[in-house]
């Protein structure tokens, strides 16, 4: 794989191989595929990538990716701006949006606290969350972070920061997956579900 007939091809392969999950063989296949396509199509591809990188900005309010100063969700009059769901990154916004069950807005932290990965509170969008929370316009903040020790620690940190303000702070429920048999649930989840049981209510 060292002898490329073209330096230009080699350069393209090198760039493609930098993408996550792409090895050199796959990169070569992609490059040859692009080479076979009409120039106009490849130009459209290249332009899309370049424009995405240059023009996408982060929403000034929730730090979600956006094309405008304020993202579509924050700008929508149909969303309840007084309820904010705190998530780790943009993929979580997309996951919750896909449920179509949530009508509030978001706040994207951009990570969770983890000294091992060199991430402290100052590296996350926490200050902007505090500013939003202090505005007096929020009723509820929902913490929707990963159920790991790092996620829990970040929840705890946020709770300490936010609890002096007069806002309801809630956390997404964790427990047995819908449609699962109890006997197939792992012991840790089942055990915690018993310990953290909730009063009976009909499932929404």
């Amino acid at each position, binding site marked *: 794989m060292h002898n490329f007939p073209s330096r230009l091809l080699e350069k393209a392969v090198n760039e493609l191989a930098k993408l996550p999950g792409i090895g050199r063989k796959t990169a070569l296949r992609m490059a040859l595929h692009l080479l076979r396509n009409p120039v106009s199509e490849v130009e459209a591809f290249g332009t899309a990538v370049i424009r995405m990188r240059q023009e996408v900005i982060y929403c000034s309010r929730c730090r979600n990716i956006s094309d405008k100063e304020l993202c579509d969700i924050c700008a929508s009059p149909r969303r309840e701006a007084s309820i904010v769901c705190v998530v780790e990154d943009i993929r979580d916004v997309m996951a919750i949006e896909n449920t179509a069950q949530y009508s509030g807005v978001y706040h994207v932290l951009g990570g969770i606290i983890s*000294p*091992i990965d060199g991430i*402290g*509170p100052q590296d996350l969008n926490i200050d902007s969350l505090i500013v939003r929370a202090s505005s007096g316009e929020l009723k509820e903040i929902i913490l929707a972070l990963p159920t790991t*020790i790092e996620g829990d*620690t970040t929840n705890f940190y946020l709770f300490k920061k936010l609890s002096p303000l007069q806002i309801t702070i809630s956390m997404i429920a964790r427990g047995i997956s819908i449609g699962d048999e109890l006997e197939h649930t792992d012991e840790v989840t089942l055990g915690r579900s018993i310990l953290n049981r909730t009063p009976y209510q009909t499932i929404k």
Partner: protein
Amino acid sequence: MHLHKIVLHNFKNYPEGEFVFSDKINCFVGNNGVGKTNLLDAIHYLSFCKSYFNPSDAQNIRHEADFFAIQGNYYRQNDTIEQLQCIQKRNQRKKFLYNKKEYDRLADHIGQFPLVMISPYDRDLINDGSDLRRRYTDSVIAQFDKLYLDDLINYNKALHQRNTLLKSFVEKRYFDAETLDIWSEQMVALGTNIFQRRSDFLKEFIPLFQHYFSFISGGKEKVDMNYQSQLHAGPLSGLMKQAVERDRSALFSTVGIHKDDLEFLMDGFPLKRYGSQGQQKSFVIAVKLAQFEYTRKVNGFKPILLLDDIFDKLDDHRVQQVIRLVSENSFGQVFITDTQEDSIRKIFDPLEIDHKIFRINGDQSGSSAGISSD
């Protein structure tokens, strides 16, 4: 529960081997290096998916062979055979099958076919660092308490994060008390649970252990275990607050349940320094028998008991007491190794309990060649 038959292929020194066992007492006799303990280890493999001695699965493959396989047929409740298979090929993932179906996770198997092993290596429990004693205690508790295991894993993650944070303060020349605090509080919440669970467990475990020790020793010495934990001095939250300055200069967390230890005492003195070899051996045998009894209580049925070279270093009286325990049917199926066939026969032949003696002579060329049994 008992193991009816085991079949070995290329496991350690066995090219092939097949053994049909008594559901009571099985003795493997033979000279050093013929593979008595290897047989026990094969049985251990079937219960725990791993060797008692060697963490490298590949090193348990017979020299020059490219795989090993262990198959065991068990009876747990009624007359249905349950089959376990463990197959390790060189450079491949270990496969573990229950009734020919592979487990998704090995963790699902652990505890299903309980087993307690008593081996000369148990003296490490006395001589090694506190880490080994913590791991031993934790393994006995966690076998039946997955939430405890989860707390323990999370505690260790939080500890690792907090230690990394303490080091990064120095590297980056800043200090953030608030962030340090949230990791401390995670350790407090989890550590307090773990402390409570360890205390409860030992409250139940220590009397069992003392009962077995006084039976074996004839009540000659008084033994005890002392659960040492900084948490005896007060709630962990206060201790961690006081330790912040110390932690910052040490660059690691100096208080918490990761500093716990079990102190072994004989007549009030540390066993490690004042106990003879025979006394130390009696001590760890009593610990393991207490583990057996604890496992039986929680599980509702008797684990398999493996006794590797147990009579060495014990005086005649203590040997007699151990045999009385074994022969009085307090245990289920038992496997014993010893170098002296005569003494084993002298011990077990007069007893009424069902027993089988396997003479192992290191020449396992055929499926059962070189092995004779009563």
